[in-house]
């Protein structure tokens, strides 16, 4: 009897010790680390690593091992092979990262088959979340900002007609489709929609913009990727005297991405944009985030929305780990924990939609102002708890 008891106690304490023993949780992180989008991949990883560093203690001795793989190109095959290797060889318990939508789409079936939760931290094509029940997204969809900008243009800026110009690839198409829906829903009319070349090379915007000027709309909604494209577009807007002609220059936040905002030049000042996060957002969490980001990566580091995607993505990963309470992390347990999860992010209060597993967040309408040579975003209006309109309105593949 006595033996039995010690044995039981011994077994019990062993079990306890095993439970308390620090665990290393492997998290696969796929992002472009080389090629044209390497800077974005870098920002995403910086955000993720900063969260891990600042919050490591919350895991009670458990540690996270972030295994980074370079997705290299936007297409599927390399990212997919990397995901297979992370799952089958590294045995990661959670997958995350991903800048490009096609990367996320190619990985989706793997996340389903392997029953591994997959936290999308940037990719913004709406219907990604429909491709696997094990996907949750913490970043944004192109529909969120575009739709809000459409409503704002009609209601607040008083535009009756608009023309949209876009870089001809999925984010651009999504963005102008969302704008049109929001704008026309609020009583405006989109009179023309102009594709302006592909994402690789910034084109000469003059012919496109001249066409817009000739048609003289109230608002000109432009989606172009940040950097060269945005610089070229805003300079052309000024050069053609479109502002004097009374045309309002508006767009989603991609147009004035914080990373490249300063390099665009003062011509961009006065532009109105809608976005889920900009570096100058005024709230205590963002103030702390900006400070921590610059302390960690140097004063010239920019806490842009991509880095926040990585930061909040890792917050979601922490939430998954914490809610497993030392047990095995499965896709079911992880997604159950994330459904309805709310979080105080640098971008304000965010949550995961319990039905679609997609992000619900504030969208900010902001104006670019020239603050003594430094370009900043000035928030004009906050629209709270915006869901993905594409899935809400069941448009195209989002309705499936």
């Amino acid at each position, binding site marked *: 009897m006595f033996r039995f008891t010690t044995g039981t106690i011994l077994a019990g304490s062993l079990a306890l010790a095993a439970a308390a023993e620090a665990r290393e949780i492997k998290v696969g992180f796929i992002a472009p*680390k080389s090629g044209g989008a390497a800077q974005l991949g870098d920002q995403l990883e910086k955000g993720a690593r900063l969260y891990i560093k600042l919050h490591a203690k919350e895991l009670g001795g458990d540690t996270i091992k972030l295994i980074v*793989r370079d997705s290299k190109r936007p297409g*599927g095959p*390399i990212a997919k*092979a990397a995901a297979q290797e992370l799952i*089958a060889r590294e045995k990661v318990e959670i997958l995350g990262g991903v800048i490009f939508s096609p990367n996320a*789409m190619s990985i989706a079936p793997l996340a389903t088959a392997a029953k591994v939760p997959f936290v999308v931290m940037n990719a913004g094509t709406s219907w990604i979340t429909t*491709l696997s029940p094990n996907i949750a997204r913490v970043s944004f969809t192109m529909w969120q900002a575009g739709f809000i900008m459409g409503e704002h243009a009609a209601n607040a800026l008083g535009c009756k007609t608009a023309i949209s110009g876009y870089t001809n*690839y999925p984010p651009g198409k999504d963005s102008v489709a969302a704008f049109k829906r929001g704008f026309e829903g609020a009583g405006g009319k989109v009179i023309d929609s102009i594709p302006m070349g592909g994402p690789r090379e910034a084109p000469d915007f003059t012919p496109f913009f001249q066409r817009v000027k000739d048609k003289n709309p109230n608002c000109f909604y432009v989606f172009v990727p940040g950097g060269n494209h945005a610089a070229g577009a805003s300079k052309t807007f000024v050069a053609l005297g479109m502002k004097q002609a009374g045309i309002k220059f508006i767009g989603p936040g991609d147009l004035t991405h914080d990373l490249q905002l300063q390099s665009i030049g003062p011509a961009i000042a006065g532009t109105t944009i809608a976005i889920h996060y900009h570096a100058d957002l005024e709230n205590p969490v963002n103030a702390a985030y900006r400070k921590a980001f610059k302390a960690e990566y140097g004063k010239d580091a920019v806490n842009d929305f991509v880095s926040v995607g990585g930061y909040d993505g890792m917050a979601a990963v922490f939430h998954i780990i914490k809610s497993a309470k030392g047990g095995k992390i499965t896709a079911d347990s992880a997604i159950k924990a994330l459904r309805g999860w709310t979080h105080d992010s640098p971008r304000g209060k965010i949550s995961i939609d319990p039905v679609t597993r997609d992000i619900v967040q504030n969208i900010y309408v902001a104006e670019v102002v020239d603050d003594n040579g430094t370009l900043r975003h000035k928030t004009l209006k906050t629209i709270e708890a915006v869901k993905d309109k594409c899935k809400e309105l069941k448009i195209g593949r989002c309705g499936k």
Partner: protein
Amino acid sequence: MTGSPPRTNNGAAAALLRAHRFRAIELIPWILAIAVYFLFPGYRLLATQILVLILFAISLDLIVGYAGIVSLGHAAFFGTGAYTAALLADAGWQEPISALALGAVTAGLLGWVSGWIILRTRELTLLMLTMALGIILYELAKDLDDITGGFDGINFENSAILGLFPFDVLYYTTNYWYAFAFLVLGFLVARTVVYAPFGRSLVGIRENVRRMHAIGTPVQQRMRHVYVIAAMIAGVAGAIWVQVQGNITIGVYEFEMSGNILIMLILGGTGRLYGAFVGVTVFTILENLTETVLGTDPPYWELVVGVALIVTVLFAPRGLLGVFDPLIRRFRERTP
């Protein structure tokens, strides 16, 4: 004196007769391919991709290495086969082998039609035209994104192979053997073509086109035939590429695809079929696995691949396999 014809230059005749026979050394890549399946389950998708790219490179070798038609747009055929298979599956035709066969047909048709124009030109003009074809198809697939899925691509599923072996989306078991089987098949076709009189005449065209004209070879026709054969094999490779992954994006038509496959082939060595095996394997492994050794901060793979290419061009102008040529020759001389 009657009897057997004079048998001069016995060695050369024997070498010609011997060339098409299988040698034991040719088993090595296949044994390695089988071993890789069991040794590296965690890299099996990558390994499957390598098998498919080898088939693609072999098809390019047929025109570049044997017929001397240098193409920078071979992805046009790869992508056409790929889209045929993917769009059929997406539309509900989920049987993989028939879709793959149709992929070969569409790619072959494209080869026939485009070859009719492209092969009338030579050298730089030809290079530009092959490139143009690839770019046109890329832009087309991008603009027709309602059908093709464009930049974002589409996910699709195929039914089980022969109704027995379902595709495996996690460990790529069936997928690997599917790619392996068609690599064997494609390789045998290419090998037969190369060692047939047809293949010999291609080498003749590559080496001295005027002479081949002079001896009455239908040069244009031969080139078009090999172009179509290469296009069909590339189409099969493209179809397998998307079927084993269950996903397609316009990446299959990208210029990078055409450029990289040519680099891989040159890296391994052109005009020797096995160059494709070496080049593709070395390039893909350097590209994908450098980061597991050296990390991603900064990513060194481009540097490593670049240095490997420069070293190859400088010290092994005939490709990595060409390095062994002098050794083999010496070995042969010693053992007559």
